């Protein structure tokens, strides 16, 4: 499997997790014995079929969930040793479905931190970074298109200057062309800010477009991890070949 080049920023070893039932009891494992190392500044796409545990894995990284077994380290220290609220601002998750509160674009950007006062310049800067520079801060955010709302959530995330960005199926509700626009925005932000990006998606073409490293997750197990070109051009495992062949893409 691919070994990261550069300093490891996130490390998972033997991580397992099961979703509790309504009574809080755990039975079937969603994630089984996950080992993963991610280098600082790397782009990692975790791909796999729906229900393979991708979103769950992402949520373990910012302690929205805690693993049942194994450990997760950030910069060499277990996640549990960091104050969880500060951790979440450094390892920042952007949800699959964009949550846009009623109000203006500025109101939604200010949601990033209710105690800090962001200047107009700061807000204009992040909007420009996500190609929303033509939008007024006082525009009603409900008037944005779905793609623009996705980018607004990215802009909100970037106001906090995270070290690691977790993207859960970015632009899943968009057609492939618009989704590519969102992914390109993510790519350009990576270049500008040199942050670590971990994206989960079931659409392998978005992962291919973003480049970096690809890890295939099937039934809660990482089957293969390789550089993007290697993975897509010459997958090593049967699971990877089956996944790539079986993918139905948007037109």
């Amino acid at each position, binding site marked *: 499997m691919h070994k990261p080049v550069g300093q490891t920023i996130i490390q998972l070893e033997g991580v397992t997790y099961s*979703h*509790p*039932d*309504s009574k*809080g009891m755990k039975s079937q494992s969603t994630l089984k014995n996950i080992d993963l190392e991610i280098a600082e500044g790397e782009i990692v796409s975790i791909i796999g079929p729906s229900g393979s545990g991708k979103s769950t894995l992402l949520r373990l990284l*910012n*302690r*929205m*969930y*805690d693993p049942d077994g194994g450990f997760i380290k950030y910069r060499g220290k277990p996640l549990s040793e960091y104050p*969880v*609220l*500060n951790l*979440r*601002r450094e390892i*920042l*998750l*952007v*949800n699959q*479905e964009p*949550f846009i*509160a009623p109000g203006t674009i500025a109101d939604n950007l200010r*949601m*990033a*931190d*209710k105690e800090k006062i962001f200047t107009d310049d700061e807000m204009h800067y992040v909007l420009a970074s996500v190609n929303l520079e033509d939008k007024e801060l006082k525009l009603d955010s409900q008037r944005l298109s779905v793609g623009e709302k996705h980018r607004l*959530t990215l802009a*909100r*995330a970037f106001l*906090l200057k995270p070290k690691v960005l977790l993207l859960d199926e970015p632009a899943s509700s968009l057609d492939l062309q618009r989704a590519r626009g969102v992914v390109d925005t993510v790519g350009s932000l990576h270049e500008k800010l040199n942050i670590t990006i971990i994206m989960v998606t079931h659409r392998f073409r978005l992962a291919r477009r973003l480049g970096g490293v690809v890890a295939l997750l099937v039934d809660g197990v990482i089957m293969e991890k390789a550089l993007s070109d290697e993975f897509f051009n010459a997958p090593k495992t049967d699971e990877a070949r089956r996944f790539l062949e079986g993918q139905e893409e948007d037109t």
Partner: protein
Amino acid sequence: MSAIPGRCIYMANDFIQQITYIDLIWSFGLVLLLGIISVVEGLRFERSLGIGVLRTVIQLSLVGYFLKWIFHLRLMWVILIIMAVMTVVAVRTAQGRLKKKYSEFQWLLAVSLVIGCVITTYVVTHLVVGVKPWWRPEYLLPLFGMILGNGMTGVALAGERLQSELEHRKLEIETLLALGYSSHDASANIRRDAMRAGLMPTINSMMIVGVVQLPGIMSGQILSGVDPTLAVKYQIMVMFMIAGSSGIASWIFTRLLLGRYFTSAHQLRYWMM
């Protein structure tokens, strides 16, 4: 004239009109008329109306004789047992109104109601009415009943609303938690809406009290011959105590209930929703 120990309050007993069960037959005539209308018009509620009439007469008569016996007994421990039983019934009733009924929620309801109602009952019986002894059943039981009943309604409404909001606003909460908000801050809007749901009926009735109709306590006291200006004071006290019990109990319950939906690491217990 009769005096009540504790504070000097006089009632003009000779103004109280006595009514017998025979006199009640006239009022039954009104219900009978409703039943006839139902039969003639084919509305088909005469059966449930009949059951309602029977239950009204039997239940209230039993309660009346029971209360007469309790007032005669004058034993503090009996009063406290009755209050405890009332509280258990209120907890079970409120629990039944919640969408998700985890057994631990009963304890949260019990704690909220006991604290909210004890505080209110103490204020009313000790500081406002000042009756002696404090457990005098003619005062404590009716007042506690109103306090508990409204507290129960308040926590049920607040709890119901809170669970509904948690379900519908899950995305908002997860987004705020992911942005580094504490569970307290992420759920602030939901807490506010749940409290509003618990309190608004009380606040709305405070807005219209005395304008649309004379409220129950006041009407009952005036019918019993109490001076209207005194009856008004009792009614004001009752309105405030209702607001107090439902507000305090709702506030405690929303905080306790929300606490069960989040871990100490500010994680949402999504499987409970």
